[in-house]
């Protein structure tokens, strides 16, 4: 795909995103907003998993940190624009603290550390009700007010979220296009060679994890004004797994994977209401089947189909190739 084609398709997608909620009821707009927010969380996890090759099971708890920090501060009168960055900084620091020991050792220890961390965060949120409201949660957080532009209405909040999502995506694109992105690609294609060329794989992996966690925090800080009610159960392990599966299903290591994956996980159940209780069973079975045949996710399937239909000489195709989950 030439870069002109790419820019064109991004613009088309953006136009679709702008137009999508129009004419629909509040509930659908809410679902679409939810999709954008989880796409942000999935984008962050994609950096950790798809680009740096580490499994994190704590993305929901970073959302929790962002959500609760934003909630407490906005309830105390701070503006969202000031509350949100604090949540992000907190997530970054926690990400570094958590990732540093876990990534020092070989093996998938980050998966277990994040698993434990997620549960710990849940316990703290549930038990320390003097701060977090415990199981009852926090309620009544205001939607941000920017003077001329208010986000009380569902539709306005959607556009606000869309703006933030686009910014977040641009930042991620900047990271992926930079020499860091090249180092990540090297890390997942041939980590030994990368080390021997001076790539400090431990350090960039840790940073990828910390940045990915910040994205989780950003998503959380948007959940707070969206739902205006948060409680510990929304950020438990099952949700971390959900976000992980979003990344995998969409296509780990592909830039747009998280958007597709989040779409599948959030929009599909809405459309397949009739499956009710069986939804998760079908879904998890399909994920397993997908991992057997096309581990590179839906985008991977798309790439394969495209190659079948139009075999072209690969020129500068490296930016389009996704990860192979190693």
């Amino acid at each position, binding site marked *: 795909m030439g870069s002109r084609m790419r820019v064109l398709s991004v613009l088309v997608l953006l136009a679709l995103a702008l137009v999508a909620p129009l004419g629909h009821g509040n509930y659908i707009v809410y679902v679409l907003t939810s999709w954008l927010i989880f796409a942000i969380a999935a984008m962050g996890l994609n950096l950790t*998993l798809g680009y740096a*090759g580490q*499994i994190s099971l704590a993305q929901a708890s970073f959302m929790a940190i962002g959500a609760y920090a934003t909630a407490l501060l906005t309830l105390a009168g701070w503006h969202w624009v000031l509350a949100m960055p604090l949540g992000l900084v907190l997530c970054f620091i926690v990400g570094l603290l958590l990732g540093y*020991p*876990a990534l*020092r*050792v070989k093996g*998938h*220890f980050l*998966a*277990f*550390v994040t*698993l*434990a*961390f997620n*549960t*710990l965060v849940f*316990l703290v949120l*549930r*038990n320390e009700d003097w701060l977090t409201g415990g199981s009852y949660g926090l309620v009544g957080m205001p939607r941000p007010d920017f003077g001329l532009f208010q986000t009380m209405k569902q539709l306005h909040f959607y556009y606000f979220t869309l703006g933030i999502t686009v910014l977040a995506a641009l930042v991620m694109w900047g990271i992926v296009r930079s020499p860091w992105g090249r180092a990540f690609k090297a890390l997942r294609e041939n980590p030994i060679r990368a080390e021997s060329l001076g790539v400090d794989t431990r350090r960039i992996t840790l940073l990828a994890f910390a940045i990915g966690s910040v994205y989780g925090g950003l998503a959380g800080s948007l959940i707070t004004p969206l739902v205006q009610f948060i409680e510990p159960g929304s950020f438990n*392990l099952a949700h971390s*797994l959900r976000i*992980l*599966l979003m990344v*995998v299903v969409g296509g780990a290591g592909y830039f747009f994977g998280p958007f597709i994956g989040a779409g599948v996980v959030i929009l599909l159940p809405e459309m397949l209401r009739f499956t009710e*209780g*069986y939804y*998760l*069973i079908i879904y*998890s*079975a399909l*994920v*397993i089947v997908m*991992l*057997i045949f096309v*581990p590179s996710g839906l985008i991977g399937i798309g790439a394969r189909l495209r190659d079948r239909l139009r075999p072209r000489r690969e020129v500068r195709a490296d930016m389009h190739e996704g990860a*192979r*989950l*190693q």
Partner: protein
Amino acid sequence: MKERPMSQFMQVLLSGLATGSIYALAAIGFTLVWQAAQTVNFAQGEFVMLPAFFVLAAMSLLGLPLWGALIVGMIVAVIVLGLLFKKLIVEPILPQGGITLIIATMALGILLKESVKEFYSAEAQPFPSVFPGDHVEIMGAVLSLQDIFNLVLCLAIVVALTLFLNRTRTGRCMQATAQNPAVAEILGVDVKRMILYTFLINAALAAVASFLITPIYLAKFSNGETLGMIAFIAAIVGGFNQIRGALVGGLLIGVLDNMTAAYVTAEYRAALPLVLLIVIILVRPQGLLGTAEGRAV
């Protein structure tokens, strides 16, 4: 009156060891599969949750008595969680990479959990214990026969497993496969079969753990979350290099869990193993009994 706290302590300790020995079985199976088959099985908790439901189904659908149902449950578990797991999931996915396989086992865990919830019941079911509720007094502590039986059985299994791995030819072949599959293959070891045995053993261990722990936990589809976490933590805290590591890890968690519930807050009862995990990875990532390099079954 000095005896009461001491006897209470003994009770908590011994009961903790009994439960811990069951956790150890799950942790040992998990370690075996990780070491010998490069498979980090995130569905291990569900592997311990599920066999109990096979038993319940055998009793209610087939009308079998407990002992018959246990045997059926064990056979089904070994076939489904051992053979089928290896053939249908691990074998096709392992070539795609370790991470892909880990994620597949996570999806498998969800699949098993939701299937039980949907096809059997979302409610907790009582599960019969092998022993009647008789009690025995040891050093002033009141212990159920079931606890003693659990402890003895689990330790016996661990001893048998250790003897099998160290003293029999097959066992040593399995160890060789775990340490260096390429060299083992050259030396004539049927590596594929050794790996299969590993999965079968894990399934059997998980089934035994299931039968012993479910009377306490009650049979519920969501058991896998807790049991899985305990298995992982026990294995990592104990140390991957030896079965003994997982054994010690399991016992430790069983005891700590009981102690926390008895002496410390109930709210943060679940937190102690989690904190322990994070501390161990920080301070001594090879685990309490692990050695800094190398791995052995």
